[in-house]
């Protein structure tokens, strides 16, 4: 079993697992990063989403050997990502939340909250590319990719509110 190396939330991590192990199990069980959740194991819901080199990806079906050398950002890594984008010292990351996370709190988005990891990852990707998205652009973003991002509790309208709030927060912070 050869070691596989990747950058996770800014740090170099090496794991020894079967090469076909999906990234999700490595993150949760080997690296104890429990932001991403198992929802379907089929890339059909988005609960497991992470950013890979800045792009949203479904970790439940992505074999670990395809992540070699890549940069993985999980929900845990969003504050540091924001700190870096703002040019804040890395030590600040432990004291702040990413504006997307703050907006999720302000708008009281979660019902059960189980899908929200993927929703926040998707929102982060969207706001990086489109800093002030329209409702139509938000809807397109959250329903494109391998599958729509599913929320069974129906928090979609709260998510739309929160993406727009995060957009405002980020505009102020940049």
């Amino acid at each position, binding site marked *: 079993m050869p070691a596989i190396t990747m950058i996770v939330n800014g740090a170099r991590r090496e794991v020894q697992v079967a090469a076909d*192990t999906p990234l999700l*199990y490595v993150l949760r069980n080997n690296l104890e990063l429990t932001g991403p959740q*198992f929802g379907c194991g089929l890339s059909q819901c988005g609960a497991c989403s992470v950013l890979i080199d800045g792009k949203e990806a479904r970790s439940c079906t992505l074999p670990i050997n395809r992540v070699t050398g890549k940069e993985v950002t999980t929900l845990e890594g969003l504050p540091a990502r924001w700190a870096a984008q703002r040019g804040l010292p890395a030590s600040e990351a432990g004291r702040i*939340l990413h504006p997307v996370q703050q907006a999720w709190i302000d708008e009281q988005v979660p019902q059960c909250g*189980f899908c929200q990891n993927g929703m926040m990852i998707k929102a982060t990707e969207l706001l990086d590319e489109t800093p002030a998205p329209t409702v139509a652009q938000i809807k397109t973003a959250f329903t494109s990719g391998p599958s729509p991002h599913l929320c069974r509790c129906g*928090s*979609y309208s709260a998510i739309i509110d929160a993406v727009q709030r995060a957009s405002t927060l980020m505009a102020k912070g940049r």
Partner: protein
Amino acid sequence: MATVNRIDVYGATLTRRQFVKAGGALFVGFSLAGRNFLEQTAQASPGKNSLDASLASAWFEIHADNTILMRTGKVDFGQTTAHTAYKQIVAEELSVPYEAITAVVMGDTDRTPDGGFSAGFLEYGGLNLRKAAAYTHQALLDLAAQKLGVEKSQLTVKDGVVSGGGKRVSYGELVAKQQLKLTIPVTGDLTSMFGLTVTGNPPMKPTSAYTIIGKSFANSVTPSKVSAKEVWVTDVRVPNMLHGRVVHPRTLGSTLVSVGELDKKTYPNAQVVVKGNLVGVVAPTEWEAIGASQQVAADTKWTDWKGLPGHAQLHKWLREEADWKTTPATKSEKNRGDVAPALASASKSLSASYELPYMKHAPIGPTIAVGDVRPDGTVYIHTHNQNPQALRGQIARMLGTSVDNVVVRIYAGPGHYGRSNGGNAGAEDEAVILSKAVGRPVRVQWMRPDDLLWSTSSPPAIANIRIGWDASGKITGYQADHYMPAMQDDRLVGALIAGLPTQPAPDVNPEPGAISTTVNTLMDPWVYDLVPNVAESGYGTFQLGQKASPLAIGLRDHSMRTPGQLQQNYPRELAISEAAAQAGVDGIEFRLKQTSDERLIRVLKAVRDASGWETRRSPGPKASATGATPVSGQGVSVMLRSGTYWACVCQVSLVPSTGKVAVDKYTIAVDPGIVINPLQLKRTIEGGALMGLSHALYEEMTFDESGVTSRDWRSYPVLTMADVPEIKVVILNHPEVGAYGGGSEAANALAVSAVAAAFFDATGKPARRLPLKPAYVQTVLKA
């Protein structure tokens, strides 16, 4: 050395020990004998691994620094009301700041007092905490009266500080350096469906004095969830734990012929466990357990079984084959007059039949549990479950051990929408069975297909409705015959497959403490009080295929948001919209003609004004069932649920040639009486509204003769963000009602009839079954 004294509190005794030299401050409980104390203590006596719910300290710890820890056995991981409304209710009743409640312990069976299911979370569940807080508040006032030397009636409390006679003392100061014991009256069976109930009538704060209830306090559990700090049920890892997966039978009635041989070369650390017809695979890593279980499954042989009608034949089968005779019919308590002659003599009438499919709760994450059967016979189950004390009882029964030996710990998890309110969601018993077999803790997580194929479902229904009205548009007679299979199967599915003891299948008479009955109760309160002749009946039957299945499984049903009421409100409200159309009267005007209930009138007018409703007859002037030009329509529906009045308007559009229905706008007005947390309420209503639109447009569990064929999100599609309409929520706060209603899940059920009525308004064609998928819609439009 301690001095002991006694204080009379509402005809009872508070015991107080004052420590002369005490280190830490304690609030280890008050001892107040309530009026029912003597008759209730025997039932409430706690066993091992239980709190004594008759002690106030089981509910609250008030610390010397004025912080408070609160415990509730009710579990809400779906809307997290325990972290908002429950805290507000308690803070209000105790007269402490919301922020003083710094910790909430929820659901753990050895750390919370009362148990019971999580239905009726505010109107029933919250009452236990509220009464416990009210007793505690009274005892604190008595302590303060003694300490300050001021008459109790002269005391006031604000922010946890008691004032009177120019003096003041905080709760923290009152309880510091003392051991206090307050006993409150409780009754019930902890591990039954209902858990324990706090009884008696302690004085409660008048609603006019509320300062905390009614404000949008932030949900205290949200920050940990959005920052990945929450310990979710999926995160639980215990020492020496193995990962497990279950190879479920090939059909809902298959028994095991032979177990596939494990490929030890590929999966060297995996192990197969067989118990009855239950095949499990455990391994040290999750990925090996998954791979090994799939490899074993492919080689495992099962008997064939065909005992279901298949979903295309479902409603025909229900009409022609189901046994509706064995189970006694139910009648509404609001039935009145003589419907048959009223319908016969009505100037016009409607007679129509409506159909609902099976729907899945479909939590976004599958059921999961860690079972830990220890050498000393103690069993720990780490899971997320809406009735952990009932699960405790069920697991004890399965293992033939005492409930004292079973502990259930509860974590945040994907919402269940009622699926686990009877004590199990699926993985719990399987985790315990595998743990017992291998002698190590085992974590069982179902895969997505397991969760759709082997879980319970919301039952299907048929309703036959007849409505007659006079020339003025007043309904003279209403008859509804509701047909629905049993909807509360609380049996442990792993125990059934393994052949281990569990409770009986739903039958006419459930066991004491259970609600698993075939009786179809009328769940949709009648709100049109001016109708002189009403006859509503409910007919129940057994679950499909259950008796014929060698596993006694078949299609198992379970309560889901607005259980039973969805199945009865949808046909009622859609039929009333159709009757209004035939009467040539606007749908809201028509409803207003049938009621004198001020609260119903209020929500109807509110939703009319907020939605941009066009007051006119239906179908609309531009309605069309053909062509490629979009048509649009409006529909309304109302519901009384848990003391809360609801009215909803949906505006839809569709292109008849494609049959694709879109909801453009959803407006809902709600009068719950007292609004506890407006933002929390708004968000839960929005969620319910969207889940309801999902039911209206997408959801139908498919099945063949052997089992469920909806196995993933492609074969069981649900609403996506693309379908989200403009949503307007109008909250009417009416504290004078004197009660907080509940049931924000009502928003779920209201959507289906309002969307169908709007479809009729747009096309002139009645669609009398769900969901409104293009293929079905096109059939309706061509009819």
